[in-house]
C-alpha cells in the first residue's frame, strides 16, 4: 500500500477503518543470509539498504522487545552534523544529506524539520571551541555559523541573553539546516519499507546465544523463538551491544549509561529551533504536538536500568529555567532514560570484529539518532561486501589498538 492523497481520501471516506498493517509479522525461518540484531532505527535502516542497494534476498531483523522501543523511541530527535573531525563530518554529513529526501524515498512522513540547531557558548573557551568547529565544518562543506548574543535572541526569541546570568550567553554556533524528525516514524518508515522488500522483522525474539563453527566463524543464533542459521550477523544493539557481543566472546570498548530526557505538557508554538547548551547542560526543542522535548545528562554510573536519578533531570530543568525564564512554570509530563553505549573517544564503532561473519555497529552514545540513515547505509555496504567503505573505514574497532581515535567529546553535546 502506498500513501498518497488518493489513499488518504479513500480511507477518510471509510472512517479510517481498514488501513492495512504497515509491516508483516512473520514467524522466523530456519535460515537467513543476514541476521541483524536490534530493530531500532539503525538496524532497520541497515536491513532496508541491504535489500534495496545490495539485493540481499533473505534478511531477518531480530528484536528482543518491540520495534523502535529502545533508544530510537527515547531520544530527543535532534539532527545535525557539526562535528569536528573529517571522519565524523564524513559519516554525520552523509546522514544529514539523506534526511531531506528520506520521507519521499520511504513514502512515509518522517516530519523532518530543518529548523536550525543553535549551540550556546557561555565562556571564552567554549566560544573558541565552537568557532574552531565552525571553521572545520566550513572546510568540509558543512553549514555552521557564528551568532552574537543579539542574533541568537533574534533566532530564538524566548532565550535570555541577560548579561547578569550566572552563565551568560556569549554567542552561539548555528547550523541552520540542522533540526528534528519524528523518531518513531523513522523506525516505522524503515520497517515498512524493509518489510515491503521481503525483510522479516522478528519482534519479541531475543538472542540468547551466538553459534560458531569449528573455524570460529558464526553459523547461527539461538533465540527465544528458536534457532536461526546464518553466516552473517550484524549487531546493532546500542546499550546492550556488550551483552550480545559477549555471546561470541568479543569484548568491547563500551560502557552503558542512562541518558535522561523529559517532555513538558503541550504548549502553543513557542520554541522555533533546537537550542543546546553544553556548559550548563540543557537542550530543548518543541515537538509538533507542542511538548517541549528536553534532553538531560547521563547519570554518573554504568547502568542498564533505563531510568536514572531525579537530580540529573532537575539540574537540567534549573538550567532551562535560567535560559528560558518564560518557561519556569511549565509542568513536566514524562521523564525517562535510555541506555547509551559510550566509547572512549565518543565516536561510533562500525566494522568487522575478530570473529568471521560477525559485524558490529555501535557506540553512537548520546547522539545516534541523527546518523540513522547514514549509519544504516554504510553498515549495509559493510555487511554485503565484507569491507567498510571510505566513510565507515575510520570507525573500525581496531582504532583503539592503532591509536587513530576520533575524539568528539566536545561535539557530542552531552557531558559524560
Amino acid at each position, binding site marked *: 500500500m502506498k500513501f498518497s492523497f488518493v489513499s488518504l481520501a479513500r480511507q477518510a471516506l471509510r472512517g479510517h477503518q481498514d488501513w492495512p498493517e504497515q509491516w508483516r509479522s512473520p514467524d522466523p525461518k530456519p535460515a537467513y543470509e543476514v541476521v541483524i540484531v536490534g530493530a531500532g532505527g539503525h538496524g532497520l535502516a541497515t536491513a532496508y539498504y541491504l535489500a534495496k542497494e545490495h539485493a540481499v534476498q533473505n534478511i531477518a531483523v531480530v528484536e528482543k522487545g518491540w520495534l523502535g522501543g529502545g533508544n530510537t523511541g527515547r531520544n530527543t530527535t535532534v539532527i545535525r552534523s557539526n562535528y569536528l573531525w573529517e571522519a565524523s563530518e564524513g559519516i554525520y554529513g552523509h546522514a544529514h544529506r539523506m534526511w531531506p529526501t528520506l520521507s519521499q524515498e520511504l513514502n512515509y512522513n518522517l516530519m523532518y524539520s530543518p529548523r536550525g540547531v543553535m549551540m550556546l557558548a557561555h565562556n571564552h573557551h567554549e566560544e573558541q571551541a565552537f568557532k574552531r568547529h565552525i571553521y572545520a565544518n566550513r572546510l568540509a562543506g558543512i553549514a555552521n555559523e557564528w551568532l552574537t548574543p543579539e542574533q541568537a535572541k533574534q533566532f530564538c526569541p524566548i532565550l535570555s541573553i541577560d548579561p547578569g546570568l550566572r552563565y551568560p550567553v556569549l554567542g552561539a554556533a548555528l547550523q541552520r539546516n540542522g533540526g528534528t524528525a519524528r523518531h518513531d516514524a523513522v523506525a516505522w518508515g524503515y520497517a515498512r519499507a524493509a518489510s515491503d522488500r521481503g525483510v522479516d522483522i522478528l519482534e519479541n525474539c531475543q538472542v540468547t546465544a551466538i553459534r560458531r563453527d569449528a573455524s570460529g566463524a558464526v553459523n547461527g543464533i539461538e533465540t527465544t523463538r528458536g534457532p536461526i542459521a546464518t553466516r552473517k550477523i550484524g549487531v546493532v544493539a546500542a546499550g*546492550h551491544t*556488550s*551483552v550480545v557481543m559477549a555471546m561470541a566472546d568479543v*569484548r*568491547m*570498548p*563500551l*560502557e*552503558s549509561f542512562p541518558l535522561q530526557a523529559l517532555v513538558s505538557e503541550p504548549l502553543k508554538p513557542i520554541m522555533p529551533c533546537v537550542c543546546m547548551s553544553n556548559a550548563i547542560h540543557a537542550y530543548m526543542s518543541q515537538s509538533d504536538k507542542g511538548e517541549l522535548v528536553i534532553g538531560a545528562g547521563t547519570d*554518573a*554510573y*554504568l*547502568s*542498564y*536500568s533505563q*531510568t536514572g*536519578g*531525579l*537530580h540529573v533531570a532537575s539540574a537540567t530543568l534549573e538550567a532551562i529555567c535560567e535560559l528560558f525564564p518564560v518557561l519556569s512554570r511549565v509542568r513536566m509530563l514524562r521523564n525517562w532514560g535510555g541506555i547509551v553505549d559510550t566509547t*572512549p573517544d565518543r565516536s561510533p564503532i562500525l566494522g568487522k570484529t575478530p570473529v568471521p561473519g560477525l559485524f558490529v555497529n555501535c557506540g553512537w552514545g548520546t547522539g545516534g539518532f541523527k546518523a540513522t540513515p547514514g549509519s544504516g547505509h554504510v553498515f549495509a555496504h559493510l555487511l554485503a561486501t565484507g569491507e567498510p567503505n571510505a566513510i565507515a573505514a575510520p570507525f573500525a574497532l581496531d582504532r*583503539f*589498538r592503532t591509536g587513530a581515535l576520533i575524539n568528539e567529546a566536545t561535539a557530542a553535546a552531552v557531558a559524560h
Partner: protein
Amino acid sequence: MLLIRCPYCEMERPEIEFKYGGQATLTRAPQTATDEEWTDFLYFRENIRGPQAERWRHAVGCGRFFNCIRDTLSDKIITTYKSGEPRPAGT
C-alpha cells in the same frame, strides 16, 4: 538518587557525595605489555548487565576509594566494602 553506604564513614549517604570510579577489577598493564594488552587495559571494559564490582570515591566525605557490588539492571546496591578487601562471598 542512589543511597550509598561508605564503608569508612559507616554511613549511608546520597549519591551526590560520591564519584563513580568505574569497573573495580582492572589490573594495570605491565611495562612489557603488548599493544593488545595495553588496548585491553586502556579501553575495553566488562560493561556487565547484572551484579558488578565497581569503585566509588566518597569525594565530599572522607575522600577515600572503596568497592561496591551493584546490580546494574536494578541499580540496587548489594554491598560496599573497603579497598583491598576481597569481594564478599555470595555477591
